[in-house]
């Protein structure tokens, strides 16, 4: 699977993915922020959490019950979703990456990665709620909940964000028959007579 052509495909995929990511990361960030906010609001009563992407590459975490003059924590968006570039590059390594079936598998993996990004953002905002808001955090999050949300997001930062594209590519994109070693070419025997 890995040869000069695969490397060229991978490099092309990497550069295209970078260009795409730089061009569309803001609208993508708005989509994951809106979905993460909707998911968080589902389990809140009253639903007070607001996630607002800013132009500085941050997703501002706001609550309707924050004091009006207080600072809003900013969650770095690119750290969550830059791994889209990794997913595209891994899919580009495959032979014939633009065939219909391959594109469909890529779209399925990209949709799964979107869900991973939404969950990562939910974990991140809860880790801020649980550990960064002083007395309010201690009053609303117990020791188990604090560790759960903070460790969950830390796992994503250290290992999950790099492992997710690899695991999704392995599951959706990698075809076992392509991973088999290429059979040595048999020399055609010239038929005599």
């Amino acid at each position, binding site marked *: *699977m*890995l040869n000069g052509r695969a490397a060229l495909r*991978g490099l092309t995929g*990497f550069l295209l993915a*970078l260009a795409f*990511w*730089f061009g569309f990361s803001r609208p993508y960030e708005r989509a994951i922020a809106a979905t993460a906010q909707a998911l968080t609001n589902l389990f809140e009563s009253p639903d007070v959490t607001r996630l607002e992407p800013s132009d500085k*590459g941050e997703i501002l975490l706001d609550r309707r019950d924050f004091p009006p003059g207080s600072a809003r924590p900013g969650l*770095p968006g*690119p*750290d969550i979703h*830059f*791994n889209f*570039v*990794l997913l595209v*590059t*891994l899919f580009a390594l495959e032979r014939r990456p633009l065939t219909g079936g391959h594109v469909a*598998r890529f779209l399925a993996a990209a949709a799964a990665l979107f869900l991973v990004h939404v969950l990562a953002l939910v974990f991140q905002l809860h880790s801020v709620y649980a550990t960064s808001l002083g007395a309010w955090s201690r009053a609303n999050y117990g020791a188990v909940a604090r560790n759960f949300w903070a*460790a969950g997001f*830390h*796992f994503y*930062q*250290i*290992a999950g964000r*790099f*492992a997710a594209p*690899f*695991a999704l590519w*392995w*599951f*959706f994109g*990698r*075809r*076992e*028959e392509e*991973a*088999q*070693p290429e059979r040595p070419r048999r020399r055609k025997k010239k038929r005599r007579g």
Partner: protein
Amino acid sequence: MSDVPVSARRRSVGFLLRFVALLLVFYLIVASHPVNDAVIVPFTAAIATVSGKLLNALGEKAEVIGTEIRSPSSFGVNIENGCNGVETALLFGSAVLAFPATWKRRLIGLLLGFAAIQVLNLVRVITLFWIGIHRPALFNSSHTVIWQSVVVLFGVLLFLLWAARQRPFSAERSPTGRERSRKG
């Protein structure tokens, strides 16, 4: 995915489950305070020291304090978890251990892979320090997107190269492989 044989699919999913389980175990080990304080922080400081020496050898004036590299122009980078190559090494190590191979081959793969990842990570730290001083506008995107992607992709490609060399072993272990070898 329907064109993939069931046994191949099962092997593939089995690999993934082992990979994720190992990644979780390694994460818990690395994130624990005693290991972080006794291994990860000194290791990261060693990366900073080596990077500082290389930067000075290349003509950049760099001072190292702990895990931080500073320049006289007040620019500095602090090497943290996520920037020390350990995260890519975790990914690579989990994949190598989850893949069917002999322990000897796994050990060789782990040692060579870890060394290669760390060499590339040194290049990354040095490059980012240089960009931070001379092209500061490019620092954030180079740091977050480009270099992180390059190092992780390098780790994945190393694993794929290593795994491709293990195929004959896994084929020998499969029933069809045994049959073939008996017949051969």
